[in-house]
């Protein structure tokens, strides 16, 4: 396993060949914000929060998808990048109904925490306030489209880890929606195995455990890594 060395924020760091910039940065204690990325899942590259500047490349690169190569000079926290990240969080907060005060995961939401971290204390764009449905037909879990940020973690978890391929994104653009099978209510899905992995992976309050109080809505994010490691070890 050959090593690759590069500069991140003018600091010499090293990582293994094939690792992404995000992984190398995080292994060296450099924090890059992400929402759609999750350790153990195939990177999606949709939320664009992990964009970084790479010297010699005109365009910004998504750290979760860009391979670390020898001798790169990467900057992860320039003023411009922080401004873009704040604006992306503002766009996400305005896109659907993220009313934290009355949300089932108030205090345990990655979007809420990221907004505070980046200093988004108000949203300058028009709130779209789309009238979106909720799906509580599933026995143990609920799906609230108002809180969904289309990060597709649930879609990837269901197809890559559980293999049931229940969830998929249907529609296009701003009208995209997470749907089960042929847009069936979750409770009537013929492929869902009720495993609840997607609920564990959801960054916001879109997928939640019914009956849990706000305080109990702590999700287990490293659960996925252990499943994947055990799977590798068992040689599957």
């Amino acid at each position, binding site marked *: 396993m050959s090593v690759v060395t590069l500069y991140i924020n003018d600091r010499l760091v090293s990582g293994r060949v094939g690792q992404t910039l995000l992984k190398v940065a995080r292994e060296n204690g450099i924090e890059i914000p992400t929402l759609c990325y999750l350790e153990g899942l195939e990177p999606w590259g949709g939320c664009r929060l992990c964009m970084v500047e790479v010297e010699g490349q005109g365009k910004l690169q998504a750290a979760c998808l860009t391979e670390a190569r020898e001798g790169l000079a990467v900057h992860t926290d320039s003023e411009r990048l922080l401004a873009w990240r704040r604006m992306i969080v503002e766009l996400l907060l305005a896109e659907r109904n993220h009313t*934290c*005060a009355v949300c089932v995961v108030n205090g345990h939401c990655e979007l*809420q925490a990221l907004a505070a971290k980046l200093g988004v204390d108000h949203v300058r764009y028009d709130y779209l306030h789309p009238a979106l449905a909720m799906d509580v037909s599933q026995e143990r879990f609920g799906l609230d489209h108002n809180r969904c940020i289309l990060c597709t973690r649930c879609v990837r978890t269901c197809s890559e880890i559980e293999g049931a391929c229940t969830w998929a994104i249907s529609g296009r653009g701003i009208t995209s929606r997470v749907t089960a099978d042929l847009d069936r209510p979750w409770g009537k899905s013929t492929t869902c195995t009720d495993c609840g992995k997607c609920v564990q992976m959801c960054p916001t309050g879109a997928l939640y455990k019914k009956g849990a109080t706000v305080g109990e809505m702590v999700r287990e994010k490293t659960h996925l890594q252990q499943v994947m490691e055990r799977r590798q070890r068992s040689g599957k």
Partner: protein
Amino acid sequence: MTVVSARKLRLATVWLGGCSGCHMSLLDLDERLMELQTKVDLVYGPLVDAKEFPREVDVTLVEGAVANVDHLELLETIRGHSAILVSLGDCAVTGNVTALRNGGKVSDLLTTIYRAGPGRSPVGPEAVQALPALLPKVLPLHHVVDVDAFIPGCPPDSERIWAALGALLRGEPVALEENQRTFG
């Protein structure tokens, strides 16, 4: 706009389309209210029986979103007479619960509650003599006027308010810590 700290700071608090939770959180300052009143003159607000919004106010804390025509006009007046306008609480900052009605139409809302529902008050054009007309959409303050500082939270706990007021009293911009600027 630095505030001259020699004389007492003229402070006003206003309550638009909100639930007064933020004002109660302001009162949760408890003993620190004593220290506050040595530095501040409260010139307008639900706790003061001034009828008109006074001129030359240094700092105004505005709670609640802009939900009707009266709020809109009062907010314009506040902006005109206040040096620093602060959005206090999620309703003022994001529209929060008050803005939950934005998904639908005002006419449907009035019909559901008053024409077909249990509501007692008058409906249609004559209603406007008694009640201020509802805006088509509830708006956060900074979508209407320029806002100088934001204190998110529903309600923002008294620590955040104290930290913000401290900065304002020292004439510095409000810069809340990461854990003090979460919504919800």
